[in-house]
């Protein structure tokens, strides 16, 4: 592997550059994935059948909590990448750890939210609306879950091997993924919850 030292570590080999670029293309596909879910949601929004409607089941408190958590985790993963770039392994690990913890907090809040929906009669099978809502939230939540395990793998590798071309590349790509999930959440927050509650 040829390492080009004029570049930041995560870009320092040809393969590293390819990985980052390829991941961006993947994110392009992810935009469309979530756009499809949003399309379904917007069309199904009022097709509640005999089930409850959005405004009846949404609660602003937990949603704000989730939003704040995810925003902050997006901030901390940014700090982790910054720490990585200035070569501060411990700080990077700390920020990465905080990010993952916030991820867990977000997930538990979301699971709590789903349990709440279940109790108020908005299950997966209730109506077109609940199916679209839970699939959209669930797909995002699934991404976060996957991201959590991915992040743990990276955390272990950075601990073991330190910051090198390989781990830096992985961490950077992971940060892209995590930021992207935050962007998706912003849209969920605005166009599912706030639009439903306004």
């Amino acid at each position, binding site marked *: 592997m040829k390492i080009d030292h004029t570049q930041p570590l995560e870009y320092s080999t040809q393969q590293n550059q390819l990985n980052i670029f390829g991941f961006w293309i993947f994110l392009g596909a992810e935009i469309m994935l979530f756009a499809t879910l949003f399309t379904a949601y917007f069309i199904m929004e009022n097709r509640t059948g005999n089930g409850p409607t959005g405004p009846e089941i949404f609660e602003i408190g937990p949603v704000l909590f989730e939003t704040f958590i995810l925003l902050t985790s997006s901030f901390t993963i940014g700090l982790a990448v910054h720490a990585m770039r200035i070569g501060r392994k411990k700080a990077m690990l700390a920020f990465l750890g905080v990010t993952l913890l916030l991820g867990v907090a977000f997930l538990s809040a979301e699971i709590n939210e789903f349990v709440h929906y279940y109790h108020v009669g908005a299950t997966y099978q209730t109506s077109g609306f609940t199916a679209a809502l839970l*699939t959209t939230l669930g797909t995002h939540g699934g991404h976060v879950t996957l991201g959590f395990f991915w992040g743990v793998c990276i955390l272990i590798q950075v601990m073991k091997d330190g910051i090198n071309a*390989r781990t830096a590349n992985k961490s950077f790509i992971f940060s892209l993924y995590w930021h992207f999930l935050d962007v998706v959440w912003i849209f969920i927050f605005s166009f599912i919850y706030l639009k439903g509650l306004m």
Partner: protein
Amino acid sequence: MEFFERFAVPNPNPAIYASMVAIVVVSLAIIIGLTYFKKWGYLWREWLTTVDHKKIGMMYLISALLMLFRGGVDALMLRAQLSMPDNKLLDPQHYNEVFSTHGIVMIIFMAMPFIFAFMNLIVPLQIGARDVAFPRLNAISFWLFAAGAMLFNISFVIGGSPDAGWTSYFPLAGTEFSESVGTNYYMIAIQISGIGSLMTGINMITTILKMRAPGMTLMKMPMFTWASFMACVIIIFAFPVLTIALLMGTTDRLFATNFFTTTNGGMDMLWANFFWVWGHPEVYILILPAFGIYSEVISTFSGRNLYGYKSMVGSMVIISLLSFLVWTHHFFTMGQGALTNSIFSISTMAIAVPTGVKIFNWLLTMWKGKIRFTVPMLYSVGFIPLFTIGGVTGVMLAMSAADYQYHNTMFLVAHFHNTIIPGVVFAMLAGLTYYWPKMFGFMLNERIGKWGFWFLSIGFVLAFFPMYITGLNGQARRMYTYSEATGFGPLNFVAFIGAGLMAIAFCLIVYNIFYSIKHSPRNVGDDPWNARSLEWATHNPVPEYNFARTPHVASSEAFWDAKKHGHELFKGEIEEIHMPNYSGVPFIMGVIFFICGFSFVFSLWIPAIVSLIGIFACMVLRSFEKDDGRLISVEEIKATESKFESAEEIKTAVSTYGGANS
């Protein structure tokens, strides 16, 4: 016993039992053969674990040909059933299963791997790269495709085939009206291979944008690379829609959600919408690489550079955008207002403009050229008028008010076969013949190839042109029979004869492969067609590292420049080459995906969860793996190169094959 009952075929008939026996016999024959000839190790080392883009391409190619036969046999059964009024060859249930699988197999498991085969084989060579950007991912893509294809193909012997059409409109495809697991197979098999397609799309875009040879700017890429690039752009934005639609369909069927049901707020139209949001771009995913192959072939055999390179590129970019703006024309009759229909009608017709530009550019490429009628060129020449007819009938269908009369009729069936067969299938056969020496180092027989072409073209015209007429006479598509009074009989019989001729053509093509393996001369050299673009600047068959030295490029016809204008393609000394390592993980992942998919089809939750965990385990394993690939030494490269060069010297006396004959 009760557990096994679910795997029984719900609508058995002798043909299905015969197929079961045939499948078992063939599988046994393969296993015994591999053991007897001690080829298991070879198979594993050279093919199942390969990450070489050329071998993956060949595997795609073989799969596509196999699937072409599966789909072709389905087609023959359909035409035979309709050849006469009140025919009793197939009952309605089997007819429904056969046309559903015909459509899915042909689009998803024949046409897609066919284009991926050429993308894999040719794109890295055309841009002077050693491999694709993510060789391991490429192998995973292939094995996911293979898992999906296998899963889909076992449906008719285990549990029953899908029977709701390749479009699987809900609620017909819902659990209420489609009780067998057939539609589960549809949802999950396509999902798995669709994920593979998406990965290929990402892989190819990265390869094309980041791994081009020095000097090759975007506007100096060969046309097939441009076409593949635009097709992959469509892939990455279209396939996620399919992923979600299939996910929703799966949950509707397996978990009783209400996306596409008719109660509790479900909306059956939403499936049709998503299906076509993916489905329409999909046809451009198929046709753009085909256009790319025609561009290469026509330019090579006209002995001229491609006319209007810039407008060719521009038209493809526009097509890729427009392809996402037209999906509603598949359901003009669904009750939306005249305004919506008008918008989508105009956007659909607009696609005719860039497509027309391409047709005229090909014609102008022949202008002042020196046309050699080889088999690939024959296919291209046949393509132009036939595809034009397909295209203009497309414009007719795009007129939404008139579409109320064409929709769901044989006119529509005739139209899309008229674009896909001369458009995609002809291109793939042209590409197969054209790139055969690139893959294997010998040529396919021209004489048999030409017979194949004529049978195919005439068969095609006979098979599909009558459908335009019966469609306008009121024959709806997907009817398993019709009465004599309708008067559809004679023309349908003509169509059956046409289908028979096409079947003969495909047999000839396969016979040609076997014939050529036995009889074709092996010393065809590196440039058997007097070609123009970079992929011909290396040896036939291509060594694993593609190019011994990185080529330097100054135009879209780098090889022609080197041959005619003294352009120096290869500068400097041979250096050691970095190549990726082979890996068994992609194959294993494919197997696990197959098991996972199968478990989902039959709602076997424990194996489903176990195999899902297996998939994640593979991903974690990959994350921790440290694999920097391997290096090929300079001596090894030199040894390989000199072998090719000595072969080249023997050959110089032999005249260029496929030269100015005919």
